[in-house]
């Protein structure tokens, strides 16, 4: 991260729509993250998930999403942080990634932002850092940094889908 980028003044008035990207920002484990708003299907309030057997710790289970079954994971736990504490303020961001629909438990949703290209940065290479690798790019605003998450990386590979194809 360079000072130069930080100093770039945020545009005033009509926001310049960088590369047309709209981001949903949210808080998780005390840090700020963002996802492409096109991947967000809805945001829903917390409801107790039904646990899944033999699931990794970040996999909280599943909840009833208007008649269909939605898997929910704790994003903080997925990023290697301490699991999100139970709180009625917690929300589930429902993410659509291709055919998969997933819920991400986060602490709170913050804002919708339209970054301009100057505000976007590639993720600096930090060796073998699991959590850095979950971020696709960085979005820098004022003195804060928001990690834009790559849903491909956040959603765990599905066991038993690829290798089970019969042919």
């Amino acid at each position, binding site marked *: 991260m360079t000072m130069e980028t930080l100093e770039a003044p945020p545009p005033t008035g009509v926001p310049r729509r960088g590369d047309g990207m709209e981001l949903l920002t949210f808080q998780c484990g005390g840090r700020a993250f963002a996802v492409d708003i096109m991947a967000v299907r809805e945001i829903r309030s917390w409801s*107790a998930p*039904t646990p*899944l*057997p033999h699931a990794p710790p970040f996999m909280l289970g599943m*909840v*009833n999403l208007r008649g269909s079954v939605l898997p929910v994971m704790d994003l903080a736990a997925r990023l290697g942080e301490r699991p999100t504490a139970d709180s009625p303020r917690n929300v589930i961001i429902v993410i659509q990634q291709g055919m998969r629909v*997933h819920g991400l438990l986060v602490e709170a949703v913050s804002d919708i932002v339209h970054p301009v290209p100057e505000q976007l940065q590639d993720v600096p290479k930090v060796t073998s850092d699991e959590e850095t690798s979950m971020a696709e790019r960085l979005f820098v605003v004022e003195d804060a940094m928001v990690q834009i998450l790559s849903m491909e990386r956040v959603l765990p590979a*599905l066991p038993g889908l690829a290798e089970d194809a*019969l*042919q």
Partner: protein
Amino acid sequence: MSSMDEIRATFFEECTELLEQLEGGLLRLEAGEQDADTVDAVFRAVHSIKGGAGAFHLTDLISFSHEFETALDGLRTGAVALEASVVATLLRASDRLGDLVAKAADGEVGDPSIPKDLADLAARAASGGSDEDDDFGLLDLPAMEEAFTVTRIDIDLDPGGPNAPPSGAAPTPSPMKPGGYWEICFEPLPDLFASGNEPLYLFRALHVMGRLTPRLIETDLPTLEELDPSQPRVRWIIDLVPSAPDLTETEIESVFEFAQDLCVFSIAHCEPEDPEPGAQGTALPANVAAGKPDPAEAQLSSVAPDAPSAPAALAPEPKPEAAAAGKQPDGAAPDGKAKGGLSTTIRVDLDRIDRLVNLVGELVICQAMLTQSVLKDGLGTNSDSASGLDDLQQLTRDIQDSVMAIRAQPVRSLFQRMTRIVREAAQMTGKDIRLETEGEATEIDKTVVERLSDPLTHMIRNSIDHGIEAPDRRVELGKDRVGVVRLSARQQSDRVVIEITDDGRGIDRERVLARAIERGLVPADRQLDPAEIDRLLFLPGFSTADGISSLSGRGVGMDVVQRAIRDLNGTITTQSEPGKGSTFSISLPLTLAILDGMIVRSAQQRMVIPLAAIIETQTLDSARIESISPTRSVVMLQDRFVPLLDLAEGMGFARPARAEGAPPDEDSALLFVQPDDFDAYALRVDAIEAQRQVVIKGLGESFGRVPCVSAATILGDGQVALIIDPGGLALAAESIRSPLPAEVQA
């Protein structure tokens, strides 16, 4: 999706059906049902694919189906005799056509080359046909000629009018004189003859009203070998130039008064059009080709010269039978043109049906909850509300069954697909295999049909590759050279049982056991009974093939088959007799949408156990539990001990700590479950809450494979509950998977 894309999608959907018709027809031909209808159906199928392909400029498909069509035409004309080798060529061609269609559907380009055998066949067909051309001398069978002579209904009312040119004559809409004319479409239904009516009299009655120019619609006429003379097969379009200009539609209709319900007819008034030169006043006899020239038409046309050349009066002796002879019912009207009637089927997007299935599922849940709360509120079972709810329950069940019936499909198409697998596998292994099928009409959920395709393919390949011996070996053993694979389906109460049987060598249990020991799947000193050995086949990582054959050894084994079946809430069992063959039985639920289950509680979680797997329940107090090691317990079931597993522990859920020595919940119970491929075992649960129908919610794309669980459901309070897969649970719990030490067996 643009409308063009939609049309395209429809085309490919139709292609699938057409390919099935094609293959089904060819298989009937192969089986010796060499009737003209079948040949025609096959021809039509290819022709329709070609036609559709033309609309989408799928050139590969067009050229291939054209060649195919030419070859098939040879069968229709008789230029190519219907021999086994020919049918084999055609079957291979139909496989290729299927491949090309599949490629085209994916927007890819298939291998457009025409196999040599097909090209040869087409060449033979073409040369055979062109020799005779319009003459069709190959139809010179005396019987046919005779049939044609009587068939001819020459209702040419204009003496001196030339006989029609043979087929190939322009299908001109016979033009009329100025003043307009009536166009009457007339198609006798089978009952017309049965009730003693006679089209001739209708024509005569019309003739009184003016000048008639009948045109015979003779497309899709079958060849003459299989005529059913009691069935009318011809349709006419009659142009009537009224002698009195004030002729009304009602007057024409009155002619058909007595035949009103016995024929399909329509009357339209036409203004005179610019007549085609030369056609003016020329009354064509009844053989104007109305469509593409095809041999069937040509056959009819070819009789024209033989017919009495004096056209004068109405047909000499057109008995009803004679009139019928020209056309034969093509029963199913497989080309979808429901003749003269309404189509009785509609195409519906599967999503819409699934939505309905889901809604009905919710209705079932809601109804169950309502019943519960009515009873809870103290309204007796004899109250009006309760009896009303009984009716509601009945209705709900009926709706549910009806909706399921929409999704139900006969397994025929699935079985038909397997014929190709058998053919290919037989070719690759050099074995002679005959596939016998039974119960193709058995219906099962569409999704099941689709998802059975892969496991069945795999099992059939296995049977052929590993089960059936090489032909020479079979002869040595005194068996028929041709191995038989039987595929049967039948409904058994609320399940469908599909069996794959071969008459091969049976499961080589010694080899299976040796392999399992070698792989470390069972301890070397373990004594296993035959059924246990058979079950080893389904263990992951087991494969008996010594070398990986290209056919069945692709690194997937029967364990994958089993998992696929289990995903469908199905079970699979084996039976095998050395030297006689093996049978694999797949038992599947009729529907994937609803399950009868027992709702239980364990570690504060509610879960559903499929009722079908439960063989007995006991309260914990009454059960006789023995501990055989600090971590393993067994429990008495009838006269033997079976392993005991705590449900929550088996699922990997943390149990809330319980004070040492504290008495267990008084509601605790044991469910004895018997997964198909495992021994029975007992599941300890904290409470049995209810027995209920639950709506199955697949975990599908978003979850991947979840161990121990077949699906989920949503309970009355909106909470999601897991549906336990007892087999998967047993698999996850090692203590159950390994058979009990012998000394514990009671």
